[in-house]
């Protein structure tokens, strides 16, 4: 069955590693839905978080192939039920004197913050799950979204409950 899989990969922070990893997915016919890369607390190691839409069987094969890349140190497939996931979005929305107050109200409900104000637009920053971002986006759409930038998803396992 096809589903979204969140794969968290620790890699050596070296030139060309991201290309090797993303290349491996495309060669095997996987579409990467979202991708986030950044350093970890150890500067020699980066973490790549990928969201891939694929069947469970084929994702197992791709994880095995990923392990074969020399620069890959660790791979975890994250279980949605057991993680905290976030994305960040910046939305530039069209405003005028009539709509500004409404938009600010919506932003406040979503705990989003306004990071730029201009005569005819606002730039709003929000973090949250994909679902929350989608909801926010839908509410702003009627006002006119001028531009929207989303980061890839990052995710971390929750701490042990015991």
């Amino acid at each position, binding site marked *: 069955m096809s589903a979204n899989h969140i794969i968290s990969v620790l*890699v*050596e922070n070296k*030139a*060309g590693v991201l*290309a*090797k990893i993303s*290349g*491996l997915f495309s*060669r095997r016919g996987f579409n990467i839905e979202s991708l986030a890369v950044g350093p970890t607390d150890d500067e020699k190691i980066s973490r790549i978080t990928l969201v891939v839409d694929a069947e469970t069987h084929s994702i*197992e*094969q791709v994880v*095995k*192939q990923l*392990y*074969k*890349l*020399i*620069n*890959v*140190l660790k791979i975890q497939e994250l279980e949605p039920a057991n993680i905290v996931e976030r994305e960040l979005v910046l939305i530039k929305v069209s405003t005028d004197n009539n709509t500004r107050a409404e938009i600010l109200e919506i932003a406040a409900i979503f705990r989003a913050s306004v990071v730029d104000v201009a005569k005819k637009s606002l730039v709003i920053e929000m973090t949250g799950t994909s679902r929350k971002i989608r909801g926010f986006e839908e509410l702003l759409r009627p006002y006119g979204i001028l531009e929207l930038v989303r980061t890839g998803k990052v995710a971390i396992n929750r701490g042990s409950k015991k």
Partner: protein
Amino acid sequence: MGKITGAQMLIKCLKKEGVDIIFGFPGGVVIPIYDALYDSDIRHILVRHEQGAAHAADGYARVTGKTGVCLATSGPGATNLITGIANAYMDSVPVVAITGQVSTSVIGTDAFQEADITGITAPITKHNYLIKDARDIPETVKEAFYIASTGRPGPVLIDVPVDVSKALIDENIKAGLNLEGYKPTYKGNLRQVLSAVKRIMESKKPVIFAGGGIVSSNASAELFEFAKLTGIAVITTLMGKGVFPETEESSLGMAGMHGTKYANLTFTETDLIIAVGVRFDDRVTGKLSEFARNADIIHIDIDPAEIGKNVKADIPIVGDAKSVLADLSEKYRQLAGVSGVEAHKKWLEKVLKCKKENPLRYSSSSEGLKPQYIIEKIYDITKGDAVIVTEVGQNQMWSAQYYKSTKPRTFISSGGLGTMGFGFPAAMGAKIGHPDRTVIDIAGDGSIQMNVQELATAVINKIPVKVMILNNGYLGMVRQWQEFFWNKRYSHTCIKGSVDFVKLAEAYGAVGLKVTEESEVEPAIKKALATDNVVLVDFSIEREENVYPMVPAGHPIDEMLDCEE
């Protein structure tokens, strides 16, 4: 503190890895490396095309078990290596390819003879490096050889920009291995080994399926012991030819599209496949859903990604074939004793009966010269003791069927990639690896022409390989498919009259012989073997002879076409 150039350091590091032969071709940005090579005692074989260098390094690696090395310049030199690198990758052969690169200051500017070779080769190398600082050379070379030769072997490419080659560095830089992300598993899980042995003992109709992984891990002795101890018959892949002596009664030869009938029928009936170092390629399994439909599978491989890739493994064991087979034998001895399992003996009898009733055969009714007969003669005359290298196509399949291999690393063939033009340069590499052995390239008239320029290399460097051309004036395997499945529409497969091979050989300073009659076959082979030079024998074979048996692509492997009586 002495200073040396990056190029000198590179050569010094290669020496340290035990490299004594490099196949290569110079060019602008590798002049510093060739300059350092000029003072070195490493032997360099100057090929006529970089593809030849890559295949020669591959052939050398396959027969010796050592890592082969090829060297080319940037841009077209590097891209000409690609087919050779891909070939080594598909067949898991340890090769280190060194390429020159334009200066780091102009990388990415489309400089003259610039190609992004690390980008291009990412999917066909086990790993690759672009060295940006000459001080990284020792560590890179050390890692490259380690990665190429350990775990599941494969090619590694090192790209060396010209300014890195010229840079002066401390001659005493130490290199460590720093490979956090690379730790192959050699020892198989003993609980899995125990389950495997129990499953083997429960099974009624087991068969061993042995592949190239056994060659890589030098595990033929362990396989032989296990097969003899358990009394289980052995089927091999093309890459596994020779890991179990094909002269043994319990050897069922090769399975698959052109495998023996008895191997394919055994696969269909077996209830347990003990697969060691194989990857269940489509040429072996035929229609996957019908393959070995009654069997459970114990899958032993050093590469976890192979397990569960094409077929479901009931008992997976990740580990080195040598170690796992030894563990299996030990456990089996403890549990089953030396007397073995009664049911297996009855099954073996049945398998051997099937082998007897379905021998490989070819029709000898027609007038023309039969390629199978030629291979049988080569086998008889060399007493099965030559290193056989093949090209790709019908010549390859006839060789695999009719030259019985008894030792690993003596049947060298492009299995995974199926590279026409592989055989001749690979045979050169094999001959350099084993100068005292007879090395024969069994070729087709199509394949040989793909790297025939290496005749110059072989003659000048006194690498006396013998090329037996099974000349039917066709790209024979494709023609065979056109005959069977495309209504005999021989679209662009006739290459009759390409060249006079005898004159071609003579033009290069080799010896050319032509054979058209059956009575000339034996004398010609003997003469070729007795001649201390490169010899091309041009056998005019029956033009439309086919390879049988044949499983049509996509069909179950027990559906085999066979020749008429």
